[in-house]
């Protein structure tokens, strides 16, 4: 019999307000199994970043609980949590502070009390995995925004946190870097780690991320399989989100017989094949 995966993260009826009269999170409950890969979507100001910061202790709930591997984190310090929960900031400049890329990546590893040899080896591996070798001994501040973003992600992933939270990690990245990052993240999940990724890019989610949750005005409007949530056009519009272009095309072509729930290029090609064969136009 297959064993059920452990629960990595559980949030129970979480409320939060920066100012007492202005609640930002209004009763969020969710459960993330170990090894899951989930996207958080929602318009600017919906509470995505605020929620993410509850999970690593940067912010503390006004009410409700956060459990990390069945431990209530309210008594855990940020540094206790940082061994288990890795957090990549939305703005890389809020995170990077070392004089070289190599030192930035080695910093977190040194804090794990690894030997110098282990730190050097792991740093080298991460530099290679993120194609940052050419920038290893340069000052991050002199590099482009996209490169600084890659460095900020690499530095967090280097410490192998069991739960990894990334706040809009693909902003400013080109197509190749985005594809490489998604490849690394999928692999990281398969190794039993849990990932939560904030993004506005529904095409990225449709192509690569199996689950998503939709935040709207501090409430969880939907949480489940990406495919199911992406069927609800109304709810996505309400949250200022735009469906992938391929889905917009499918919807427009539904009057020509195309299935309106297509989410990827491959699905569209299959649908085209069926229609073209049926109508004998190929």
């Amino acid at each position, binding site marked *: 019999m297959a064993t059920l995966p452990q629960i990595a993260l559980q949030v129970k009826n979480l409320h939060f307000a920066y100012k007492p009269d202005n609640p930002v999170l209004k009763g969020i409950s969710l459960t993330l199994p170990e090894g899951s890969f989930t996207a958080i979507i929602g318009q600017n100001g919906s509470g995505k970043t605020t929620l993410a910061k509850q999970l690593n202790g940067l912010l503390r709930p006004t009410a409700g609980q956060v459990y990390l591997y069945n431990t209530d984190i309210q008594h855990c310090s940020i540094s206790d949590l940082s061994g288990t929960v890795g957090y990549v900031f939305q703005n890389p400049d809020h995170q990077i502070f070392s004089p070289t890329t190599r030192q930035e990546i080695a910093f977190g590893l040194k804090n794990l009390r690894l030997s110098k040899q282990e730190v050097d080896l792991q740093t080298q591996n991460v530099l290679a995995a993120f194609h940052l070798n050419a920038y290893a001994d340069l000052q991050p501040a002199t590099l482009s*925004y996209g490169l600084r973003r890659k460095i900020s992600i690499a530095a967090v992933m280097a410490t192998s946190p069991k739960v990894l939270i990334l706040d809009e990690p693909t902003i*400013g990245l*080109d197509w190749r870097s985005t594809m490489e990052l998604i490849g690394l993240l999928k692999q990281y999940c398969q190794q039993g780690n849990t990932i939560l990724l904030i993004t506005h890019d529904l095409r990225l989610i449709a192509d690569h991320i199996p689950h998503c949750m939709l935040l709207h005005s501090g409430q969880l409007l939907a949480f489940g399989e990406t495919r199911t949530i992406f069927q609800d056009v109304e709810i996505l519009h309400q949250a200022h989100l735009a469906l992938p*272009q391929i889905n917009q095309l499918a919807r427009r*072509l539904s009057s*020509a017989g195309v299935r309106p729930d297509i989410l990827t290029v491959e699905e569209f090609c299959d649908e*085209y094949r069926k229609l073209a064969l049926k109508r004998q136009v190929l």
Partner: protein
Amino acid sequence: MAPILTIEKFSYAYPSIDISKEPQWVFQDLTLDVEEGEFVSVMGPTGVGKTTLCLALNGIVPQSTGGIIRGDIWVDGLNTKSHPISKLAQRVGMVFQDPDAQLFQVNVEAEVAFGLENLGVPRDEIRKRVDWALSVVHLQGFDLTPLSYLSGGQKQRVAIAAILAMRPKILVLDEPTTNLDPVGKEEILAGIKELRHNHGTTVIFVSHESEFIAELSDRVVILDQGQVAMAGSPESVFSQLRALHDIGVSAPQVTELADCLNREFGQGFSFCTLDLADRAIRSSLMAA
């Protein structure tokens, strides 16, 4: 007609800390002309020098940054090496990725008027231009709204209005939509579209957002390894999907679909916008 922007054999390297090292060239012999009223989008891999190129267009590179420069850039007839940044800035308006890095006044009106006040523009002319700039970005009536009350998309539109009020001949937008949600992005792009159609502003648009680029641009320029690797109409550039992926940049999802349908079914599709894709596929399914 002479181009409004001429980049001729432009090479540039930032100052190096270690002078014994060879200069690290960001650009080598980059050449590009832009006609007045043209909408040119610039794409390229992370770190290729897109922001450096923007900064070179109003002389910040190399006048403020130092470094080694070869070749020339002319903006509206002025060489960027020999004219002060303040003079060039009246011709080239820049909007950056992060509006918070650019906005600093208490309310919308003060922000949009700031540049004009510095230029010594008369009071009633300032009023007119502020009203006009706010109407272009659809922020009429927001004059006295504090900047801190605005959404990210609204703030970015204020930044654009503040630049527009100066009536630059060239508007340079360096990834103006990256921090915005899709609705915020649409707001910005609608404003830019209108500028192009109603005011003939020359626009240089730096972005990774191929789907917007395909909708908006006259010409797409792909930078790679310090040079122009590809340039042409959106259709001609985006249809070279393999070459784009080799360089590391994306194409609109409908162009990937065209490529897939061409490979699988021997079609000859080359669309890069939603409208063109809709029309082409609809008619191909009706063919028989």
